[in-house]
């Protein structure tokens, strides 16, 4: 499969309440095996998916948020979080998981995967991608 396309996964929904977030993460992990150029975005209630300190005991569901920390190992290193969505929910980057990756082009230096972007910047990112899967 020679074609390399730019894939953007757009996560818009809260992690629990519906299954979209969990099944989106499953697509991202499977898709990582296809050696495409992958980005992941979190907007609207989707920003809750990567908040830290999630505790799902009370709702009897699996807390799958630790899996996001593995994205760097799958070479998913571009994670865009839309700033206004955070602000509207009283959140800041300190409330988010500390997602990192090791940059093989920079002597495996550990770097932040999360990039805060404005709505306009995210629109440009969407424009620059070939395949957008929204969940």
């Amino acid at each position: 499969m020679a074609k390399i396309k730019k894939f953007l996964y757009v996560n818009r929904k809260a992690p629990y309440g519906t299954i979209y977030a969990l099944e989106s993460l499953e697509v991202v992990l499977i898709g990582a095996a296809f050696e495409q150029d992958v980005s992941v975005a979190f907007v609207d209630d989707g920003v809750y998916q990567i908040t830290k300190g999630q505790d799902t005991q009370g709702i009897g569901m699996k807390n799958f948020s630790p899996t996001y920390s593995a994205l760097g190992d799958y070479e998913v290193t571009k994670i865009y979080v839309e700033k206004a969505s955070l602000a509207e929910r009283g959140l800041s980057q300190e409330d988010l998981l500390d997602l990192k990756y090791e940059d093989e082009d920079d002597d495996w230096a550990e770097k932040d995967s999360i990039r805060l972007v404005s709505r306009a910047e995210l629109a440009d990112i969407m424009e620059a991608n070939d395949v957008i899967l929204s969940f």
Partner: protein
Amino acid sequence: MKFGIQVNEGPYNHQASDTAYQFTKAALEKGHEIFRVFFYHDGVYNGTRLGVPPQDDRNITKLWTELAAQHDLDLVVCVAAAQRRGVLDADEAKRHGKDADNIAPGFRISGLGQLIEAGIQADRLVVFGD
């Protein structure tokens, strides 16, 4: 143009599958190619043959089955999403020790890689859902 189609919602509860069907049909009538239709999330319920909608209503699963037969469409139901929700073909039923299968004619069960491949191979991947 070559389209990939993703259907993320089940039949009747949501219009996504109807709209995806109408889009697919219209695209084929205009001479476009449909690389694959991929059913994900509750969309896998479009692939059960056991639905019995009222006679004066549309049978969405049957519409997909007929369209697939007519145009040799590839209708793929995601295996992981389908297992959770009890949509099985004969092989899957046997593997999991279930006493029945319910996949509708024209549909097949396969992995998420088929969705990624549709994204790679199609000129446009169109997602229908919430």
